[in-house]
């Protein structure tokens, strides 16, 4: 411990401030990142300092090679048509004496200060965001510690020239007094400028001194992030987004000059160029409302709200984050500057349907008094990037805008006036999403029964049984299941070691009884097998010769293969005890299943250039008769890249099968599961231009957009004409709309003001307008079950209670409808999600669910539908699905 030296008199001193941390905390406080800050703050300063009709701001990128040969970039931001940084050059003591308040026109001191307020200014804009944005992007070399440097020179109307220097090392340091007049001019244009002897930094500014009144901010050692943003136009895009309105009315002009001297001006986004609000537009896709007075204060009014819808507009590509709206909504322009956007998705989801959001644009601006009011720190964040939405004034403005958007939406015919729709609450959406994930997304990692072990070996298993009557799976008490034989197969072949093969019985209530276990050795063919002899079906207890079946009904003879105690694969055979198995269905005996997956990232629907997708097509025969059919399948590009001529430079489609003959056996005996035959299992690569090298794999050249896989099966089977058609939309270099591609539904809460419709069902599933969108699943919060459940929420202790339970029930019910909708057209792809999932699941609930689903399919396709049994099955499936959801939550 250091002992204080009491012999010296003590005094109060300013503590060292870590300016680097301070600046980082200011800039990271910008909701939309540091590049927005760089585009916003310097322009805002210049605009505020405007003294002629227009302020011109130039962002210029310079390339410098430092004395040690190290390449570096420097950014200068120069304004003209402004007043320059004038006023006296005050030191900290002088400012302190004034109580930290500066007078109008004392711009130099205001620029150099940190956290001071001008006498005529509100608190905003005085935290030093302008210089923070400049310093932040400077990474001075050396020491390993973050250091920031900026310089600024100004030419004043009286001809005075000033050059200031500021750095953070990390201590905040400013040169006082600044360099003046000729010294300043010489240093700016000199080959070498020593920033500070103690800092050990020398830079080649080599700039021409300013010749017109104005200010220049010089950022040496420009960060690579800023250089990249300049070169890839991100900075230009931010400048446009922030300042297009000020540019449009001629307040400012912004240009960017690159290292080659090429100069470009920032323009107005094309959708706002027409300025339709200045003319009496009759275009029904445009909406203008002016002079909207606020009820709370008639002196405050919204000057103008302009909305438009253009179907040709592409969805806005976000610069920062999808969750932060940019052009995609109503831009709030305060003082001709964009502050934030009320998002079409986030704010107006009720009024602007998802498929219209890409083409929806809007902006709002305010009369002077309201504009000034909004600028205060009470409403606007110091970063000028959002408003405090809890404030009454902001709420009122939002309400006014929402009612205008509603009016526009109704005029467009987007919403029904009597119906009030909104996305489900976040909590309910999460419940729905988690429930659907259980069905849609296969579990990650290796689960028991998935058929794959940790070493990457795929296991197959088959159980063969001779039934007493070879035409049926019915077995009566006292009859035998003979020559039971279990064989497992590995791929790639594993030809060493042993596995355990086990058989067991499962009764109609899913209770298991082990019958026999055998050890088997893998041979050269990668297979292991065991014979389990015969089993007598009887009422008593199971053992190696007896299968206990105490009651009538559907039993299963189960086989498993396991290694080191882990189940690797299961297979089973149905055994109908003392009763006939159900007859095969009369209709939909042949169904199709198509799956398209992204081989690079199975959870991503979008396919990027050069990536592979996998097309799996299989056909199912649920009848007892063999079928001979034909298949066509092709992947069709909706458009080729513009430089390619379809059919000459590249084909417009890729044939995967043309009139391909398919033979598929019928089931051997009644009660057995359908026979499935894989028809296509093929990877296909997608390119946006003809690939340079020869690709051995199948590929298709297409332009970015949506393309289609078409599969048709046709022929005749059991006297019925088979014509099955299905297609899948492929998203190439574009994302599917909303959460389509991930989830089948979008949960939407729908209230109605029409009393007669209160008795509407609790949920309703509709087909989407676009084939690649999610199905809208509407639920009614006015339904009495929901209302009661919602009230129970107050006492709910777990996520399974209250309205959440209702949402799960709705999801389960709707999922069954969704699966069956495709089945009606002969497409079993959706049903297969349940069947595949059951193959991978450990517990028997999934197996039971799969059986119920298969039975539901079969019964609904039989001539004499047993309505009661079908309804009961439906209830069982829904109940099982809800249990599955709850188990997953647990």
């Amino acid at each position, binding site marked *: 411990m250091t002992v204080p030296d009491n012999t010296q008199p003590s005094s109060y001193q300013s503590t060292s401030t870590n300016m680097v941390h301070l600046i980082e905390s200011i800039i990271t406080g910008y909701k939309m990142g540091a590049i927005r800050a760089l585009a916003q703050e310097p322009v805002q300063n210049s605009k505020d300092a405007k003294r002629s009709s227009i302020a011109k701001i130039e962002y210029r990128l310079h390339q410098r090679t430092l004395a040690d040969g190290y390449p570096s970039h420097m950014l200068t931001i120069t304004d003209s048509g402004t007043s320059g940084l004038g006023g006296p050059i005050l030191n900290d003591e002088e400012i302190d004496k004034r109580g930290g308040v500066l007078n109008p026109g004392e711009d130099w001191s205001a620029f150099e200060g940190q956290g001071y307020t001008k006498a005529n200014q509100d608190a905003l804009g005085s935290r030093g965001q302008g210089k923070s944005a400049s310093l932040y992007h400077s990474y001075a070399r050396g020491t390993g510690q973050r250091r920031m440097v900026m310089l600024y020179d100004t030419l004043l109307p009286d001809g005075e020239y000033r050059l200031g220097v500021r750095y953070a090392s990390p201590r905040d340091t400013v040169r006082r007094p600044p360099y003046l007049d000729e010294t300043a001019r010489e240093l700016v244009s000199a080959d070498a400028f020593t920033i500070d002897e103690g800092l050990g930094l020398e830079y080649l500014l080599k700039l021409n001194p300013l010749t017109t009144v104005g200010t220049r901010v010089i950022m040496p050692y420009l960060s690579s992030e800023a250089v990249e943003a300049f070169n890839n136009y991100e900075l230009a895009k931010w*400048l446009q987004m922030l300042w297009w309105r000020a540019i449009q009315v001629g307040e400012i002009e912004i240009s960017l000059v690159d290292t080659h001297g090429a100069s470009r001006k920032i323009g107005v986004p094309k959708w706002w160029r027409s300025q339709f609000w200045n003319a009496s537009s009759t275009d029904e896709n445009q909406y203008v409302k002016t002079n909207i007075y606020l009820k709370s204060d008639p002196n405050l009014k919204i000057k103008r709200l302009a909305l438009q819808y253009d179907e040709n507009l592409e969805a806005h590509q976000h610069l920062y984050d999808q969750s932060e709206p940019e052009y995609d909504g109503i831009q709030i322009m305060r003082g001709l500057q964009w502050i934030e956007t009320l998002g079409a998705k986030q704010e107006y989801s009720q009024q602007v349907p998802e498929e219209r959001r890409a083409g929806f644009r809007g902006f709002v601006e305010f009369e002077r008094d309201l504009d000034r009011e909004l600028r205060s720190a009470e409403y606007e964040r110091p970063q000028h990037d959002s408003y405090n939405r809890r404030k009454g004034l902001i709420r009122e403005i939002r309400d006014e805008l929402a009612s205008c958007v509603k009016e526009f939406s109704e005029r467009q015919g987007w919403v029904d006036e009597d119906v009030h729709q909104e996305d489900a609450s976040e909590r309910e959406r999460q419940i729905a999403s988690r429930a659907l994930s259980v069905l849609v997304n296969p579990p990650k990692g290796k689960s028991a029964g998935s058929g794959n072990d940790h070493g990457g070996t795929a296991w197959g298993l088959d159980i063969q049984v001779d039934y007493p009557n070879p035409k049926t799976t019915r077995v009566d008490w006292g009859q035998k299941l003979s020559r039971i034989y279990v064989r497992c197969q590995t791929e790639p072949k594993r030809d060493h070691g042993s596995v355990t093969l086990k058989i067991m019985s499962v009764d109609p209530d899913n209770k298991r009884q082990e019958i026999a276990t055998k050890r088997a050795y893998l041979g050269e063919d990668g297979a292991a097998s065991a014979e389990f002899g015969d089993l007598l079906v009887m009422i008593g207890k199971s053992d190696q010769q007896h299968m206990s079946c105490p009651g009538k009904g559907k039993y299963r003879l189960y086989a498993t293969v396991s290694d080191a105690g882990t189940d690797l694969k299961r297979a089973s055979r149905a055994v109908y005890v003392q009763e006939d198995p159900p007859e095969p269905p009369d209709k939909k005996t042949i169904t199709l299943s198509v799956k398209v997956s992204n081989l690079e990232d199975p959870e991503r629907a979008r396919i990027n250039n050069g990536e592979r997708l996998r097309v799996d097509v299989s056909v199912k025969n649920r009848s007892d008769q063999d079928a001979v059919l034909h298949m066509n399948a092709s992947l069709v590009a909706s458009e080729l890249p*513009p430089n390619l001529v379809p*059919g000459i430079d590249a084909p417009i*489609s890729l044939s995967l099968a043309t009139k391909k003959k398919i033979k598929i056996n019928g089931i051997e005996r009644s009660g057995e599961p359908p026979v499935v035959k894989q028809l296509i299992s093929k990877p296909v690569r997608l390119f946006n231009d003809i690939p340079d090298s020869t690709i051995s794999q199948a590929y298709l050249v297409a332009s970015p957009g949506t393309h289609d896989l*078409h599969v*048709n099966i046709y022929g005749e089977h059991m006297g019925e004409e088979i014509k099955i058609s299905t297609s899948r939309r492929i998203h190439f270099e574009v994302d599917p709309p909303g959460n389509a591609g991930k989830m089948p539904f979008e949960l939407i809460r729908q209230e109605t003001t029409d009393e007669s419709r209160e008795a509407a069902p609790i949920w309703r599933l509709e087909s989407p307008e676009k084939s690649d969108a999610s199905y809208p699943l509407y639920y009614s919060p006015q339904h009495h079950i929901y209302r009661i459940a919602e009230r129970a929420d107050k006492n709910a202790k777990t996520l399974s209670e209250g309205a959440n339970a209702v949402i799960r029930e709705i999801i389960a019910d709707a999922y069954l409808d969704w699966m069956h909708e495709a089945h009606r057209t002969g497409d079993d792809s959706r049903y297969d999600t349940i069947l595949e999932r059951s193959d991978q699941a450990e517990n028997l609930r999934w197996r039971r669910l799969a059986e119920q689903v298969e039975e539901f399919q079969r019964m609904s396709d039989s001539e004499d539908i047993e309505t009661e049994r079908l309804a009961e099955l439906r209830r069982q499936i829904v109940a099982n699905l809800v249990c599955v959801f709850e188990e997953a939550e647990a």
Partner: protein
Amino acid sequence: MPVKLWQRDSQGKYTSRVVTVWDRPLGGEEYRAQAEELDQRLDDVLDDALARLESVKNVDANIRFKRIWCVGRSVRESGILHLTALRTERRALLWRAMAWKCWLGTRHDFKVGSDPETRWRTLRSSAQPETKNKKGGVRDLFETGFWLQQQELADAVFTFGGRVSNVREIDSRTSINSPAMRTALNSWLKALPAEHRELAHRSSNFEKIAKNLRARWPDRGFGAARRPEHQEPEELLDEVHEVLDPLVMKITER
């Protein structure tokens, strides 16, 4: 793309701006150098198309038909579509730029006092070009010509009877606009007696031909998975006969 779009203001002054279908904060101007290069190449394309049109003046076909074929072929042979500037854009802008060049007669180095190239007007209809892309997915005539030139002129005239409206009937239906189908259609027409062929080429009848073909080779639903380009030429021709012979019988019976 960026393309240089020539225009003339209300005072009659010629101006140009660089446009791109993608929204750019700096407008298309950031690509002016590429657009200028393209503009210069387009001079050659249009001159070539003019010469080509002159060389086919004796071909018996509608002038609109011949000129869109000539422009399309000149574009194809010029290789401009492989310029870097055109790789990621839609062709619609290129057609608009060409249409304005034809309308105003502006060569790439056009200055005050230069004489406009008035001969280019014969490559385009007499109407002033659109200032925006057409709504409703209607293809530009030059796009149709670009598609048309995939066949040699004589074959194209034979297939479509030298009528642009017939070209559009097939070109606008994506599932039947492949070269394979056009070849088959050409062969089918060859098998018809001359007077039947003439009837088939009438606009109202050709529309029926296109519709029947599309019904057989739809772009969605059952049948969409088997495209004409996936069939053997003989098999395709047989099916075209199967679809169109009854139709032509009906037409000629009237």
